[in-house]
């Protein structure tokens, strides 16, 4: 890896909490990942990006998080906190120190960062596991620690990359309910990347459906449904089926 020092905040990535991606293109060598993707997220809106595996969803999140620049098109976004696909927890840190990591990077003293993280442990169902290392936690708990870390970064935008992709169906359903509740308590602008259309319908205000690689937007569906939503609600089922149809499944 080559070293690169990026001055933070130089690029104009701020629309006061909202996201605006216009005609974004990105290639990796001969491989075209994004072929002109446009999407918007208003402040405090949850936008799900759904599409087949390997279609370039993670690439899109990297652009929004400012980790890479588009080859063409524009990306405007406020400072974002990324929750990577495989939780990205550091195996040598306790759950508490992992949750406090974002604040430690921001320069907050260890004791203060730990205290701030610990305030949320009960609400996140992590009480009693403060000193446990990630290997000692269940899959669902690891995701909660990772999400808490993302939340504590204090950024207006959260970029969640398939947050529950690695969980079993039962735990995933629990975690989806839990995330809906957590976002109701602490509203943020959220970009949720998922290959699970049902998850998108349950959690999002709007769903952007992507084609197989190179990704372009095939449809945008509004989800004007009241919360909390249940997977058996006729409206949820109908919307899920429509999304599946659009994706060609």
């Amino acid at each position: 890896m080559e070293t690169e020092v990026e001055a933070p905040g130089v690029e104009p990535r701020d629309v006061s909490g909202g996201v605006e991606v216009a005609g974004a293109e990105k290639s990796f060598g001969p491989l075209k990942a994004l072929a002109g993707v446009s999407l918007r997220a208003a402040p405090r809106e949850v936008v799900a990006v759904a599409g087949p595996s390997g279609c370039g969803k993670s690439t899109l999140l990297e652009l929004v998080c400012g980790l890479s620049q588009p080859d063409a098109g524009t990306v405007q976004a406020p400072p974002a906190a990324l929750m990577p696909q495989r939780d990205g927890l550091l195996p040598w840190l306790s759950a508490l120190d992992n949750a406090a990591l974002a604040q430690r990077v921001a320069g907050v003293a260890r004791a203060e960062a730990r205290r701030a993280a610990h305030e949320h442990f009960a609400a996140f169902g992590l009480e009693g596991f403060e000193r446990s290392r990630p290997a000692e936690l269940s899959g669902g708990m690891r995701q909660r620690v990772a999400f808490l870390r993302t939340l504590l970064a204090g950024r207006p935008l959260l970029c969640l990359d398939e947050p529950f992709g690695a969980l079993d169906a039962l735990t995933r359903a629990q975690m989806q309910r839990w995330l809906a509740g957590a976002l109701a308590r602490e509203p943020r602008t959220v970009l949720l990347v998922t290959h699970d259309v049902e998850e998108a319908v349950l959690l999002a205000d709007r769903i952007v459906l992507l084609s197989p690689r190179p990704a372009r937007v095939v449809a945008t569906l509004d989800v004007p449904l009241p919360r909390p939503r249940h997977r058996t609600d006729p409206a949820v089922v109908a919307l899920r089926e429509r999304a599946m149809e659009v994706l060609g499944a």
Partner: protein
Amino acid sequence: MAVLIILVLLGAWEAVVRLGGVDELLLPAPTQVLEALWTDRDLLAPDLAVTTWEVVLGLAAAIAAGAGLGIAMHVSPAARRALRPLVIGSQAVPVPVIAPLVVLVLGFGLAPKVLLVALVCFFPVAINLYDGLRDADPDARKLLRSLDATRWQTLRMLELPSALPSAFTGMKIAAAVAVIGAVFAEWSGSSEGLGHALLTANGQLATARAFAATLLLFLLAIGLYGAFALLERRFAGWTPRSTTPGGP
């Protein structure tokens, strides 16, 4: 199990020497080696202390130099391009050839021994650390970049801790081969140490004592390796490796 294997091998060795009538000047039986170790203990103990000291200092220098090189090569592409050929090339230098030269320049004291031990040992430390630094979890790397972590923060919070198990592998390899450097250095000019004891014992046809000195070198290497394995368990106890049964 290891004990059983060693006992069988020693038993076979003993039997071959005793029954086969091998000249004890060529190959002493294990019991004769132990006897020499005991009777010559006053002769060998100071030599063991000298060699241990050389090896410990040399290892310390190797770890400091290896860590510095590994980190420099990781952080700076320019340093990597400049240093890598030298670092790799240094391992092609035959130690028995340069040992007399080092002694010629640095004299008969401690310095040439420490230098030669360090020369043999810094490479596994530097390369394993360098590889470990690069192998940090890409997801965690992305995460830190999204948090605007500085290069130094990424190194301190992610890369160095995640390279620790790999660095310990390098240090364990270094510990196991360190005595070779010390012995060659002593052979090139020394009046003490286990390498020196080996030479004089050979000269006096005291083969059993030479084997006893070799046994001490063997134990020294195992002891140093064990010390690093303990440190690893203490400081890198979070790795899957150290929590699975099996051990060293």
